[in-house]
């Protein structure tokens, strides 16, 4: 799990922080609660506080357009946070980042159509309703293909149009093309 904001790039690397939380020295934790405290208390407040402190600019004279990137939100569920707590967390982040600081939030979640993870589906559905732009990336229904690795659908909240592109991933970049314009067909 990783959080970052582009203003001065603040990273919170979950894998590293959780080691400090579990195996770190006792004294360090007295000063400030770890952002990943929710692993033991299942309370996401410390994480939100971290986001708020990191993104709020020191001087209020200039707007810098903070961006909060969350990779990936589904992991919070695996670490013991409830779906409602995760949605609350995102809601608080939206209030601070989108509304107060006029910034953006980009969130990655896992989902697939035949998933049985109801908690995760709840988070995904709810996020879909709150998002302005949704990119839905999935593999082809008909299976693996060498020239087309999958398709990405995107739609905006205020327009009822779904656009679909297919893509092929190379080592360093991804090429997008309209359906049926892949090297496999042409």
């Amino acid at each position, binding site marked *: 799990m990783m959080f970052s904001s582009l203003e001065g790039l603040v990273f919170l690397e979950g894998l590293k922080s959780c080691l400090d939380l*579990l195996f770190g020295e006792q004294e360090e934790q007295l000063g400030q609660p770890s952002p990943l405290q929710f692993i033991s208390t299942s309370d996401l407040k410390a994480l939100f506080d971290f986001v708020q402190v990191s993104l709020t600019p020191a001087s209020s004279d200039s707007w810098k357009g903070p961006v909060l990137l969350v990779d990936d939100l589904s992991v919070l569920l*695996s670490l013991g946070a409830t779906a409602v707590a995760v949605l609350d967390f995102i809601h608080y982040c939206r209030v601070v980042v989108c509304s107060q600081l006029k910034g953006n939030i980009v969130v990655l979640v896992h989902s697939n159509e035949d998933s049985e*993870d109801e908690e995760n589906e709840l988070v995904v559905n709810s996020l879909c309703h709150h998002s302005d732009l949704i990119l839905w990336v999935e593999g082809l*229904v008909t*299976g693996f293909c060498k020239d087309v690795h999958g398709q990405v659908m995107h739609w905006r909240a205020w327009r009822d149009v779904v656009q679909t592109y297919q893509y092929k991933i190379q080592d360093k970049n991804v090429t997008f093309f309209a359906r049926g314009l892949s090297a496999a067909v042409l």
Partner: protein
Amino acid sequence: MAAAAGGTAQGRGATSFQRKAADGSRLATVVGTRPSVRHGQLLLSSGLPSLDCVLGGGIAVGTLLLIEEDKYALYSNLLFKYFLAEGVVCGHDLFVASAKEHPDNILKELPAPLLDEQRNELGEEATAVKSEDFQDSMKIAWRYQNLPKIEASPTTSTKFGHYYDISKTMSPELFQSIKWHSFYLPEELSLQPTVKTCNMNSAYGRLLLSIQRVIYQEGFDGSDPQKKQKNILRIGIQNLGSLLWGDDICCSDTPEDIHSLTKFLYVLRGLLRKSLSACIITIPAHLIENKAIMERVTNLSDTVVGLESFIGSERETNPLYKDYHGLVHVRQIPRLNSLICDVSDTKDLAFRLKRKLFTIERLHLPPDLSDTVSRTSKQELAGSAKLLSSGCGAMAIGKKHLDF
């Protein structure tokens, strides 16, 4: 080689291409590893060269390989032992954790490495038949003659990884040079807990603490690079998530504690990422009724391979599968330093247990040698051929779906 390449480049004076020779040689100093051609990450062998090939060259250091056990955990246990045996042969340190079998016994039953000459003898019969086949020109199906020959089992060109003879156990002398640590749950439970468990199952908490201690005390975290020769720690955890670990996810559809296993995997991955180690875990996926847990576990692992044995299923007697003992499903391969993972060109893989060797091969149908054109069970065969894989077409049956 590097010098020669550099020389020609300078001579022409036009190319900007330069080999990263210095980088590669620095990485290659650890025994039993090699840098990946594709992404430069340090790879180690899983002990089964055909599995290495399927996984894109090997297991990257610092990653987690999750094996979904077959029904009776026969074949997953073999993979587990191969992984540890490869560690012994390469001189890596081992950490073996188990709740069922004592780690000492697991180590005693590791397969013996096959020397090159012995392996050649085993393979000789097969190659002899092959060369005979291809020497004389084809008279009937002559159009097929120029087609490239297809190797049944995927192999790598360079020498990496060893073969093991499962009919013999490894000689005790080989163990003397390596260091190994064991974690046997019933023994550990009697000791006092000293870890903040974070609402985690106490068995998992103890295991994490034990792994963390080994990594830090033996210097696998790279904290003291001058101390000694770098080495790799191979961690093996058996039957994780089973009832023996005190986990209830295998018992009910709505277990009380669904987060212990995922928390454990998350912290374990944190430990692996920061150290020179690689981990293999076997997990009884078929016993976990709540599929949401397996989805999360898969997301939290790097490489996931599922084994499906034919024992006890109707496929055991199916003529389609008479050459194989089960199917291999590669569910996830990590993308390291690259947007794309190493995907092998075929998705249909099967495994076979020979007298001495366990191999993973491309699944292919046996030739139809019967005199009559129509087999009695042809309909059944066609039906089961559809079930072969979730590959192209299988999911779209009846849907009339066209992607492009």
